[in-house]
């Protein structure tokens, strides 16, 4: 059952990924991306990471992707559909590079050995709920990275504002 689900999610994720990068219409790409994020969330659920699944949907699907849609609507899109979506020369080179990278990765994957086990066993996570487990880790061990992440977000907000702000005519 779990295997079946995994294969379903995995295949759909790969298929959607391929379709996203080859899709002509960026809006369709974004839509497929949305679907992909759902399947990613499904994979997270298989990994017992329900909090991550929820965050994936809320943050990625609910916020980041909408931002993409927004920007896509801002730029002139109807014309884009009529053109080739790829750069004129580098299409095949890109494919070769990606394939080479894939082969390297796969070699690594099959030679991979797992490190020492930690303290959060599946039973424990299920018992205290994943949210709580994450929370405990974030707010104790990883409090500094958490603060830094917050700072990065703040910087991003300010930076985004500064970038997108229109110049005043007077200034």
């Amino acid at each position, binding site marked *: 059952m779990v295997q079946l689900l995994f294969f379903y999610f995995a295949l759909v994720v790969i298929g959607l990924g391929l379709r996203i990068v080859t899709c002509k219409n960026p809006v369709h790409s974004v839509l497929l991306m949305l679907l992909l994020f759902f399947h990613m969330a499904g994979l997270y659920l298989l990994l017992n990471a329900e909090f991550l699944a929820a965050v994936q949907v*809320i943050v990625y699907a609910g916020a980041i992707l909408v931002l993409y849609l927004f920007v896509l609507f801002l730029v002139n899109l109807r014309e884009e559909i009529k053109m080739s979506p790829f750069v004129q020369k580098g299409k095949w080179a890109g494919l070769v590079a990606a394939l080479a990278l894939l082969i390297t990765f796969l070699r690594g994957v099959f030679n991979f050995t797992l490190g020492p086990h930690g303290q959060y066993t599946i039973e424990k996570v299920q018992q205290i709920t994943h949210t709580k487990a994450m929370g405990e880790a974030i707010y104790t061990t990883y409090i500094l990275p958490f603060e830094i992440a917050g700072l990065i977000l703040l910087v991003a907000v300010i930076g985004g504002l500064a970038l997108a702000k229109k110049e005043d005519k007077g200034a």
Partner: protein
Amino acid sequence: MELLWILIKIIIVFTVVMIHVMYATYFERKVIGHMQVRMGPMRVGWHGVLQPIADGIKAFFKEDIIPTAADKKVFYAAPLICLISALSAVAVIPFFETFAIANINIGLLYIFAMSSLASYGVVLAGWSSNSKYSFLGGLRSSAQVISYEIAMGLSLVGVMMLAGSLNLSDIVHAQMQSSYKIYLIPQIIGFFVFVVAMFAETNRTPFDLPEAESELVAGYCTEYSGMRFALFFMAEYIGMIVMSCLAVICFLGGWSGPFEVPGIPFFWFILKAYFFIFLYYWVRATLPRYRYDQLMALGWKVLIPLALFNILLTGTIKSLIG
């Protein structure tokens, strides 16, 4: 066996929700009608009680017009996204003690996730219709939903802090054990922010800018007709019901009440939810509509600071008392 039970629950909830959606439209027209010293629907059946059925049949058999310049795939998908995301949020709502389709640990987050998805349907509907009015409506809606989602999420953080859980049933239980029995009293600021954000999330008056009929004709659903339009309509009403239920669960103590009503465990829940749905109609009959920039200003400059203040207050009090 368990799967079968879940299936039965799904069917029951789906039917009940759909009937509620049908009659929510009817009661909206009746309530607003009487508030405006008129009668509302009167023709089909006694005082128009069969009106929703007639409307449904009409919408079903109406010609489905698709603009030639529309992006057809997206045009088809948009109302479905709206409806499905709204419907799936119903799944985690505990209507009474032991009854929820899925009693999951991250119920609250799940509802947020689903309600944030609804904006996709609206944005894509606006874009794919290839109509300028639809497009503006779609853009407005997405900006609005995203902004108010933050306010709504923050307003519920206080509840999460008090209850210590994201599970909706647990939140109700925690409320029953708290000193005031409901979180309305300790979380009055949060409740206020939540109610305002609730109106904005469901695109209802005074925040109905995406479909502001006097400005954008019908906003994102200008080009939709027949069944597809009805799907948007249904999604909107399901969204209203879900938000009302969420308000009941998080602030008004869910299914608990001053006394037990034997045989009807969901009596109090339904009663409180109906109050919120009535509030939707009541406000619609009373208030004018905000302007787009004012709406955003309200969300970012008033509601979010208020919600943050609420979190601070709750945290302080909680750490002081216990």
